[in-house]
């Protein structure tokens, strides 16, 4: 290869990513250790509170991921900021978002069963999250359909924006629907404000930070993979393989 293609990842970026990954994993491990062994059980929820050190951070990452995907899609559709990078970012972020939405729903259900007495309640946030999960599975399926890069990018971006506009309508209508059916039974106020001080607060904060780092780390890797896949599609396997080898030697 005479001139390296733009996708070549410099050694510095690779090192930074590796540091980020290690930090994220250490952070998650510390959260688990603090959450399971160091923090005391909650006055009201008992040991169940330990799930709350990971569940809200997972949900936060899921929504952050969809937010980034929507923003990247919008930037792709805007002619002045249209670059393939935003398309790849949208795809990478949405994929990580789907994983974390799945984790959020599962961990929320496990927490909800003993707390509310049901695996599922038709709360606006839960319902919106579940619909987003299904929708983004469709979005990823749409992205997997082969086609020219710009065609795929445009239709994916439009699909992502349709979902984005849908979210507030879904949320508000479910909220309204619920309020007409029965009083919300989610989170009663006495349990809600219990985890706010001491080691519990720090553990939760660490959870948020480390899961966000995990999100950035995974998205960066997924982005990189998408870049190589696109390169393979456009310039052939040889270039992509050569790049990967050069990266392995450099890293």
């Amino acid at each position: 290869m005479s001139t390296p293609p733009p996708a070549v990842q410099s050694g510095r970026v690779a090192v930074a990513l590796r540091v980020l990954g290690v930090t994220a994993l250490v952070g998650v491990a510390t959260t688990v250790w603090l959450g399971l062994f160091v923090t005391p059980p909650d006055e009201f929820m008992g040991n169940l509170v330990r799930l709350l050190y990971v569940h809200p951070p997972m949900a936060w990452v899921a929504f952050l991921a969809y937010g980034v995907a929507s923003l990247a899609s919008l930037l792709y559709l805007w002619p002045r900021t249209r670059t393939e990078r935003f398309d790849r970012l949208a795809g990478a972020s949405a994929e990580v978002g789907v994983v974390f939405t799945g984790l959020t729903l599962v961990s929320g259900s496990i927490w909800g069963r003993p707390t509310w007495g049901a695996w599922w309640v038709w709360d606006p946030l839960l319902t919106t999250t579940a619909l987003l999960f299904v929708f983004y599975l469709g979005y990823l399926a749409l992205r997997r359909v082969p086609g020219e890069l710009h065609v795929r990018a445009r239709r994916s971006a439009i699909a992502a924006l349709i979902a984005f506009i849908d979210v507030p309508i879904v949320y508000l209508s479910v909220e309204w629907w619920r309020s007409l059916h029965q009083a919300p039974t989610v989170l009663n106020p006495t349990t809600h404000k219990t985890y706010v001080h001491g080691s519990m607060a720090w553990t939760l904060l660490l959870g948020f930070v480390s899961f966000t780092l995990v999100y950035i780390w995974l998205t960066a890797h997924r982005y990189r993979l998408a870049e190589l896949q696109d390169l393979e599609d456009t310039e052939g396997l040889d270039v992509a393989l050569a790049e990967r080898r050069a990266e392995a030697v450099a890293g």
Partner: protein
Amino acid sequence: MLRDAVLVAGKDLRIEVRSRVGLNQIGPFAIAVLLLFGLALGPDRQVLAPASAGLFWVAVLLSTILAVQRSYAIESADAARDGLRLSGLDPAGIFLGKASAVAAQLLVLEAALTIGVALLYGARLSGALVLVGACVAGTLGLAAIGTLYGVVASGLRVRETLLPLLFLPVVAPVLLAATKAWDEALAGTPSRAGGWLDVLVVFAVLYVAIGIVAFGPLLEDG
């Protein structure tokens, strides 16, 4: 744009009148869905009547998928889609035309389904204005978003499976609002359906607007 919309809608509806795919296939499909709901919930009218609004709208949602797929199936034969692109018609007009043709067919279907839920589930029809208003606004929203996703999926090999997956989660608010509006009307309190009708109108206006803007580029891509 409106003239083009009328042309395209006229073409689609003429094809339907001559081929009768909607009448012979989508209509019977919707009635089969109503019958199956009845079997699933049991013959008790006290269970079926209160659920009839929701079951009606689920049947409409499922039929919308078929109607949209049909709407693009007629463009895929004989490279009709390329003809449409070469025709010089305004893409926004094509979108409005195709969406209104789908909406018109769905409205006819809804009239039949209304009779169906009255006969099969024992729903007592009342609040006609709200029933019709929810049908018109809800159907416009469904047709708009269906037509938009239809063009996204139409050129793809996986269109039959992808369209429902993209379409159904997004139209959840239509199902919810239209069902609630119908519930109120059937319960004899149509005056309380106002807010739900607003949701349907907002949804329809938003997605018709998005369709007008986004349809052109999507049609070119396919």
